[in-house]
Every structure is written in C-alpha cells, then in structure tokens.
C-alpha cells in the first residue's frame, strides 16, 4: 500500500509543472504552465508561496541564476524536484488512481 501523501492540489500542480519543465523551471514558465492548466490568470506570488513551502518540506530545491537585462538586472530562481518530491508525486498518483478507479461517472 502506498505511503499516505499530504500534497494539496496546488502542491501537486506545481510539482507536475516542475517535472514537465525540467531544467528550465523558474517563476514565469511555472506560472504559465499552471495558467494553461487552470485556464485563468495565476498570481506569481502565490506560485512562489507554494514553492517556498515545498522547499521547506524538502520536496523541491532551488538555485539562483544570473541576473539578466530582460529582468531589469534581477536573477531567476530555478526550482527542481528532489528525490523525496518525486516519491511524493508517485504516491499521490497511486492514491488518486486508486480512488478514481471504478467510478462510472468519470468514464
């Protein structure tokens, strides 16, 4: 039986976005990925708030990039999943698939 997961919907969406984006995961593409999924504007500050929580829990790690002129001389902060984060996402997937199985309303 998979270990229980405490990932919320926002947490899971951000972790999956990080997996899709790979090495190029920083604020802008992560927010755009979420926006494309939910279909409405997303506040970058709330994305960062979730990312900081995930970093505190050890599911994500961050690294500061170089400042660029495109960003007004400010650096990007890149994020990527840790091993623990990947295990949590797998556990969440197993739990959700189990819950969704056999529900005729979901087709």
């Amino acid at each position, binding site marked *: 039986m998979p270990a229980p997961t405490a990932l919320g919907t926002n947490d899971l969406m951000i972790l999956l976005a990080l997996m899709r984006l790979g090495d190029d995961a*920083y*604020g*802008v593409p992560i*927010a755009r990925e979420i926006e494309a999924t939910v279909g409405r*504007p997303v*506040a*970058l*500050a*709330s994305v*960062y*708030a979730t990312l*900081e929580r995930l970093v505190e829990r050890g599911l994500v790690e961050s690294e*500061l990039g170089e*400042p660029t002129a*495109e*960003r*007004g001389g*400010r*650096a*990007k*902060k890149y994020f990527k999943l840790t091993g623990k984060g990947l295990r949590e996402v797998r556990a969440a997937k197993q739990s959700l698939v189990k819950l969704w199985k056999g529900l005729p309303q979901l087709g």
Partner: protein
Amino acid sequence: MNTIHPPASGARLLKRLVPAEDHDVLLGDLHEEYQHGRSRAWYWFQIVAAVAASSWKDIRKHKLAALGASALALVYLLIVSSAIARLLNLWRPDISVAAFVAVYKAIDLTMSAVLGWLIVRLARDRGVTMVVAYCGFMLAAVCVLMLVSGMVVAAFHPEDAGWHRLAVQFQSALTHQFVQDLLMLSAGFLATRRTEAA
C-alpha cells in the same frame, strides 16, 4: 527586443508596503513578462497579489507579533472609544441623536487612522503587515460578534429577532469596520513614507 519597462511605482509600492521580504526574483519575473507583452492591468494585479501574499507570509512568520499588535490596537481603540463616549456624554451638545452618532463615528475613525500610523511607526521594518494583521483580525471579530449577537437575540428575545434587522445591523457594522480598516491602511501607508525618509 524592445525594452518596455513596467511602471517603477509597482516595485516601489511592494518594497515599501512589505519591506521585510525579498521581492527581487518576483519583480524580475514581472519585468520579464511585461517585456513579453503582458498588460498594465495584469502587472498591477500581480503587485496587489504580491502585497497580499507577502503580508500573509510575514504575519505567519511573526504570529506572536501580529497577535500582540492586534490585541494592543483593540485595547487602544476600546479605551479611546470609551473616552470619547464619556467626553461627549459630559459635554452633551445640543444636537440630534443622528448628529451625535456621526460626531462619535468621525472621531472614532480619526483615532483609527492615527492608530494605523502608530502601528507602522512602531514596527518600522514590517511595513503595513501588522496593520493588515489587525484589519483581518477585526473583520473576523466583527463577523463572529454579529453572528453570536444574532444567535443570542434569537434565543432570548425572539420578538426582537428578524433577518432584516440583523442584516441591516451586520451591514452597518461591516461598513464601519471596512472604512476604519481603509483609513488605518492609508495612514499606515503614509507612515511608511516617513520611515523611508528617516
């Protein structure tokens, strides 16, 4: 690529209202997106969301300070409101009840603005965060008090209970609280300017 800069006032506002947090990475993202064609409306939505998110983060990091600021602010307002009521009662101006209530509310709201200014001046490095904490606390308190009051009236004085009366009282209390919070935040914002200049 054309160099289109976002409004500089957005970044200044964010840093002034929530100075304790580091906003550089977020501001860099906003700058980048603005260069790629995002609108001014989008940019200001992001700044407002950033102020709210940063304030909340600051309050969570300093829960005791936020609770302390809210408690002290409440005590201050209770003492000041009580003093104003006593003074007005002693003075007993020859005016109608409605005018009396209006004078009382005007003084009460002025004292609230002074309180907002004081809170920011006393917690210089927190910006308006502590004022936001107090405003949130009071809005929640008003909602709870009105609910409890409505339940008590319905239980013990059912002849006085009525949805319409309760709705009117609730709306009046909430409006007053909302105006009070707006004045406190505005005065707090002005105090951050003095803090910056200091």
